């Protein structure tokens, strides 16, 4: 995948992706949105590209019509470089549960312009996943979510698993505010 400095993108893309922009989380801590992205030339390539043994890129970037129209309807798409770390984590999770792992639409990377965002969730860094199904089990109740939450949390100190809340229909995991700078890119 070709790495891109988000600051070099068109004004319209920069407005939607807000590369490198400082944002404040709910605790008042400052973070920078991803600046470096991989360019995704077409949906076909996203389907074909394996970012881990059992995950294609398309599984981690599927969004619905609540995404910014520019990012939804036109290619190339841009996905934060940290998506590879998420893919690696999900592969580890899949190995532990020994079953296919399904990420929901809007449940992988979504841009800061996505309309379901409340604030700037980890999804905007490409480091969060909403797992709605493991094997044949839909994670739609406390029991099934807690069962896999324990396994998900056991895979690393950097992993955070959201505790079950009434009505949850997925298990949410994230790796924090991870930004990756590709070797060929300059941060100047």
């Amino acid at each position, binding site marked *: 995948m070709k790495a891109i400095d988000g600051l070099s993108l068109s004004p319209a893309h920069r407005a939607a992706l807000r590369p490198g922009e400082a944002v404040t989380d709910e605790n008042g801590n400052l973070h920078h949105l991803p600046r470096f992205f991989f360019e995704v030339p077409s949906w076909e390539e996203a389907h074909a590209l394996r970012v881990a043994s059992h995950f294609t890129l398309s599984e981690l970037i599927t969004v619905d019509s609540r995404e910014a129209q520019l990012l939804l309807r036109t290619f190339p798409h841009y996905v934060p470089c940290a998506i590879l770390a998420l893919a690696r984590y999900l592969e580890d999770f899949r190995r532990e549960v020994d079953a296919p792992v399904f990420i929901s*639409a809007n449940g992988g990377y979504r841009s800061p312009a996505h309309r379901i965002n409340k604030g700037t969730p980890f999804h905007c860094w490409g480091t969060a996943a909403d797992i709605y199904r493991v094997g044949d089990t839909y994670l739609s109740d406390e029991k099934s979510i807690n069962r896999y939450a324990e396994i998900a949390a056991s895979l690393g100190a950097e992993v955070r698993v959201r505790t079950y809340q009434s009505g949850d229909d997925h298990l949410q995991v994230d790796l924090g505010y991870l930004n990756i700078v590709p070797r060929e890119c300059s941060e100047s």
Partner: protein
Amino acid sequence: MNDEPKTETLRQECERILSESKAVAYAVAVHDYETGLRLSINSDRRFHAASTMKVAILLAIGKAIDDGRIQPNDTLHVRNRFRSAIDRTPFRIDAESDGYPQLHKMIGRTARISDLTEWMIVSSSNLATNLLLDYITVEEAQRVLREAGVCGIELRRGVDDTKAHEQNFNNETTAEGLVQLFATLRGDFLSKASREMAINILLQQRFNSMIPAPLPAHASVAHKTGEISTACHDAGIVYLPEREPYILVVLTEVAPEKNGRRETIAKISGIVFQTLTGMEVKA
């Protein structure tokens, strides 16, 4: 032509059928584009709208397409989690009682707005309905009704919101409101493409045991039924190749588990058809 005697005869026949049905309450409204005949029986009385409210969402989607805010091929995340209009507590749609259970197999993935719209109307899927209404929003759907000049339909929430139902916070409609809604769908409020999309979906209706039941085979009906334990409705446009169409709305409030409620509406449809066209209904 003076239609008053015909209208009066039709009124008496409808009232006879409905009073014999022991419906707790009823309303009938007819608008015939061929003769100009209009019939209104209790047509301003408010009823629980049941699934007839889905036609208002259909109109809002058509309008959003015309305004360029959505495209039919746009997709929505299929998830079965909604929030009560009363207190935002989460609730789900029961897959086994949904009109299109196949949609529940798509949970987690995306579905096209055009497909969801079709499943909402043709199969009366409650899951598709709530997904579309969450996206369009209740406020926008209500705004479109107002813009179209449709009065008598109060859209307040999605379907299967038990907590709202318990507090009597329901979608409501009058027979006249549904006549206006179907007249809007048939008129020039929507673009030709959106109008044809909406009418074609309504023509594919799967539940045909009420208005269409007594009509001859060459009739086609663009309609939507609505049934809950205490209400049984059907509303739509009846197309016949030899004449202009007519709109018929029949709303009934019934005792729970009362038998024969669909047959009552079918009888009303039959008598309306006979009176307007002079033709015989199906045996």
